[in-house]
């Protein structure tokens, strides 16, 4: 609040697929108000300087996960990043490691498939065979506070994709299913109501999943919700290995 009004130079990546061969950078002078976030400055450009600017945003309170952008080279949730953290010149680019659709908007279709691959839903052994028609009689699955806290942190992910932008493995190996997807799978593996860990661990032992991670920890550094995906990935590695060792000792389905 102590900071007064000031004008900053905002450099924004522009790309129109119909006209441009490669993305280019445009400069804007933005008069800012105290307390503004980076997103406010980008919105100012859209509202007052150039309505053709395309960028994604919605909730402005770090819940929807749509306003992730590179701010001075670092993946940031722009609604949560104060202008006070920067000087008079800020560079805003689309999230790294994703194809650009237009300006600050990136293509995220492949990411949705990665999410699905870890079976992010509660799997119950019984439901597969019987019991489906008795769903109402059986009631809900109760859970203690301890059981909840075992996975709650991993369920806080808002799919903002900052971790994919920060991950050096994603940069080299685009087919890597990545931090958020593995954290999501691990969230269900650590849920006391779930009985599908064996299925997910089989996914985790496949190509381009947990063992591709080299534990650079960048995902956890940039995560705006403190999910700590790096920890999830490495716990998932252990889970996948223990499950594999069990498979050697016990016949399938024995454990």
């Amino acid at each position: 609040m102590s900071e007064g009004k000031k004008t900053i130079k905002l450099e924004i990546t522009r790309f129109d697929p119909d006209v441009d061969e490669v993305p280019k950078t445009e400069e804007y002078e933005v008069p800012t108000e105290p307390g503004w976030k980076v997103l406010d400055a980008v919105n100012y450009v859209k509202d007052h300087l150039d309505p053709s600017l395309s960028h994604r945003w919605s909730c402005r309170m770090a819940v929807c996960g749509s306003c992730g952008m590179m701010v001075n080279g670092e993946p940031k949730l722009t609604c949560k990043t104060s202008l006070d953290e920067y000087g008079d010149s800020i560079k805003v680019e689309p999230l790294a490691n994703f194809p650009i659709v237009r300006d600050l908007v990136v293509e995220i279709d492949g990411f949705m498939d990665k999410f699905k691959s870890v079976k992010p839903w509660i799997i119950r052994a019984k439901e597969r065979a019987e019991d489906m028609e008795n769903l109402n009689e059986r009631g809900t699955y109760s859970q203690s506070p301890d059981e909840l806290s075992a996975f709650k942190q991993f369920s806080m992910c808002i799919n903002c994709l900052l971790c994919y932008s920060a991950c050096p493995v994603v940069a080299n190996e685009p087919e890597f299913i990545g931090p958020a997807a593995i954290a999501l799978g691990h969230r269900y593996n650590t849920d006391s109501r779930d009985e599908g860990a064996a299925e997910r661990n089989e996914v985790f032992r496949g190509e381009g999943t947990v063992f591709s991670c080299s534990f650079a920890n960048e995902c956890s550094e940039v995560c705006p919700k403190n999910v700590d995906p790096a920890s999830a990935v490495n716990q998932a590695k252990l889970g996948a290995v223990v499950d594999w060792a069990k498979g050697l000792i016990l016949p399938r389905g024995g454990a």
Partner: protein
Amino acid sequence: MKQLLLKIEPIIWLLFGAGLSIGTMLLTGFVLVVGLAIPLGWVPADALDYERAHALASNLIGRLFLLGLIALPLWKGAHHLRSISLDFGGESRDGAVGSLLYLLAAAGSVAGIVAVIRI
């Protein structure tokens, strides 16, 4: 080759994890004792004279400890070097690089086994 490496990845990762722990904890303690505590006289100089050290090293626990100290960090190093190769864009050569590094670690481990048997 890549598929084979993927198959044995759980074993490799266990050896890597064990090597990481050994490297950071046991090796540090080892260096602390042999490199600092004895030269600086924090423990009596004859605490690890030849007879005592040999007796310590040649019982079963001592042999296993030394084998861990020799072999496991090799797997850690091999796995790290493979990661570094990948970080430098070595996706296409990963099968060959990984196999070579793990073969070296395996050869070092075999040498370690021979060495601790011959103590």
